[in-house]
């Protein structure tokens, strides 16, 4: 009798990679259903949109999934030159649809389909297949797709609001609203326009496709942790860090417990923490590494939200921390055998956190004392060139990031505004659609009557502020 010779152990756990990935997909099903409910069913019944246009979110998901599937199939066919049958086997084993699905879920609702396809293609080919396929990528493929989209076609992404929300809301997501308020305001101004925090929890606020329903994300998280599918340490430390830091900030500004809750419940924080940051391939292996990973993610997210013009920092934080995964694992391994040294990272993180909080608070306080409506603080005149009776003002204005513009003035009247440097292309597209600059110039005498363009409040305000400042300078 011949027996199979093999090294032990000879019994294996019944859990397999495919089962893990299947559970991961199962946990996403309710979220996809909610996407369809919120953006298709609701919109169809409450607005006059056509059926095709309300089906757009579903198409986005389908396009994302199909593109990543097909591009992986093509890779196996053309590059690895495997035959169709083995290609399909490989595809089954490499879970090709996940990057496309996750990518579609982190994009705004009105993203053109070809951009979704572009992102899914880049994410799959560059983020995953070039690195050797499933299990070997160092960056989360879905986020690579997102990164490529946001670098390449940020201007074309479209508004994150669905048609129903466009009708009812002011035209910004909660976090962009917060940024425009310089991170400070009352409950009414920050949360109020979207309902209550319960709306944030249930998901009836604007945001990208998958991120809005925190309730379903929480359920998915519990399911995934109970079935031991994801690393629970990362999302918990991530969210806790954000909560603690924003709580301290809110507290010292005299804001209640709703402020940190707002930060946790708005934007893609929970979605990213549960589905992206825990991607097993691109997160640390050691428990200590995972904790460090979570804390760093939280701190970086706070940095991006408060100190840069980007209102949302989750995706960038996760990508950035993907780079540091080997470092965290290295530290994790060292500390695993020498636990006494743990005070070193604790100390470092403590110092960084304190510095960060001090910096943010002083920033907000500066803005507060200078007043939010103070035009003079937001617009700065860098230089004035005189050319006969023509004057050219070189100004910067704080809108979404800093806008630089040249304003030409003849006889105390603004003749033209040329924006030389702008930060946010999405908003500019909206402005250009309605020829806003022309409107501003023609209405310069009573500028306050001019409404802001929905979807690009800050940029409209920034332009209006420039006019106010230059005219007041002229009248002196």
């Amino acid at each position, binding site marked *: 009798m011949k027996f199979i010779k093999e090294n032990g152990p000879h019994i294996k756990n019944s859990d397999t990679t495919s089962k893990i990935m299947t559970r991961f997909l199962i946990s996403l099903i309710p979220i996809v259903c909610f996407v369809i409910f919120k953006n298709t069913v609701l919109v169809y019944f409450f607005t006059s949109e056509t059926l095709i246009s309300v089906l757009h979110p579903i198409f986005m998901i389908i396009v994302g999934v199909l593109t990543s599937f097909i591009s992986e199939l093509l890779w196996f066919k053309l590059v690895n030159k495997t035959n169709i049958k083995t290609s399909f086997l490989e595809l089954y084993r490499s879970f090709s649809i996940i990057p496309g699905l996750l990518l579609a879920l982190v994009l705004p609702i009105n993203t053109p389909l070809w951009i979704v396809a572009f992102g899914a293609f880049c994410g799959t080919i*560059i983020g995953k297949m070039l690195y050797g396929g499933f299990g070997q990528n160092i960056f989360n493929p879905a986020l690579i797709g997102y990164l*490529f989209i946001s*670098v*390449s*076609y940020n201007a*074309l992404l479209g508004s994150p609001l669905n048609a129903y929300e466009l009708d009812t809301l002011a035209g910004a997501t909660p976090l962009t609203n917060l940024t425009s308020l310089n991170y400070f305001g009352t409950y009414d101004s920050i949360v109020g326009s979207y309902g209550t925090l319960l709306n944030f929890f249930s998901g009836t606020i604007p945001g990208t496709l998958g991120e809005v329903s925190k309730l379903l994300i929480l359920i998915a998280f519990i399911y995934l942790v109970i079935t031991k599918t994801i690393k629970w340490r990362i999302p918990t430390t991530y969210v806790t860090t954000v909560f603690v830091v924003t709580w301290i900030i809110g507290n010292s500004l005299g804001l209640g417990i709703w402020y940190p809750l707002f930060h946790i419940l708005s934007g893609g924080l929970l979605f990213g923490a549960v589905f992206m940051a825990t991607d097993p391939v691109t997160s640390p292996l050691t428990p200590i590494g995972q904790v460090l990973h979570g804390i760093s993610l939280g701190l970086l997210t706070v940095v991006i939200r408060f100190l840069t013009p980007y209102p949302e920092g989750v995706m960038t934080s996760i990508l950035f921390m993907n780079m540091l995964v080997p470092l965290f694992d290295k530290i994790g391994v060292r500390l695993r055998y020498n636990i006494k040294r743990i005070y070193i990272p604790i100390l470092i993180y403590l110092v960084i956190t304190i510095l960060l909080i001090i910096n943010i608070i002083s920033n907000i306080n500066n803005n507060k004392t200078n007043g939010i409506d103070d035009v003079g603080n937001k617009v700065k005149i860098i230089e004035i060139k005189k050319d006969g009776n023509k004057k050219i003002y070189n100004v910067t204005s704080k809108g979404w990031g800093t806008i630089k513009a040249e304003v030409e003035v003849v006889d105390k009247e603004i003749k033209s505004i040329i924006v030389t440097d702008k930060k946010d292309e999405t908003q500019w597209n909206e402005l250009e659609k309605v020829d806003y600059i022309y409107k501003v110039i023609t209405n310069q005498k009573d500028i306050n009557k001019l409404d802001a363009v929905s979807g690009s409040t800050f940029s409209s305000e920034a332009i209006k502020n420039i006019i106010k400042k230059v005219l007041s300078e002229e009248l002196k």
Partner: protein
Amino acid sequence: MKKIFSYLFKENPVFVLVLGLCSVLAVTTTFERSYMMGVVVLVILVLSNLIVSLIRKIVSEEIRIPVYIIIISTLVTITELILNKYSKPLYDAFGIYLPLIVVNCVVLGRALSYASKNKVLDSIKDGFKSGLGYLVAISIIGLLRELLGNGTITIMNDISGITGYKEILHIFNNVVIPNKLFLTSGGAFILLGIVIGIINGRRSEV
């Protein structure tokens, strides 16, 4: 013809030896700047090889590197002065990457490994060959970056002050939306990586 082609891709200083990547990545936002940088490097390479080869018997082993660096930096300084005088836009566009030719590994590398050991004519030939390889590589990268990132090909714009000829081709004419990714630094890295990868693949196939 085949020989030249195979040389350009089999022993290309950029694609194969991976030297002098600074400028290949930095100044290639338009086609014109790319090939102009290529031409400048080509000229400096030929001249430095010529001079190094001429003085190869006088210079002793120990002080070789400093002497060569002085020679190359003199040549670069002259180029800087010329460009500054005749084509200010190009000079500004190149910025610090023009003086950085001094530490471009292609130039110093050829001087050390070839020109210091060979006859004048051979050295010039070698310099020309390497320089041409560099020129082709940087032009390809520049062409791709501008075409994909901006949808245009700048045949001549910055130096039209000298030539009086100005031409920017608009290729896609808004049919295809250009991808700004390729104009960013990250895009440059990725593009170069992919191009080198594809050339590697071709090479191993032939």
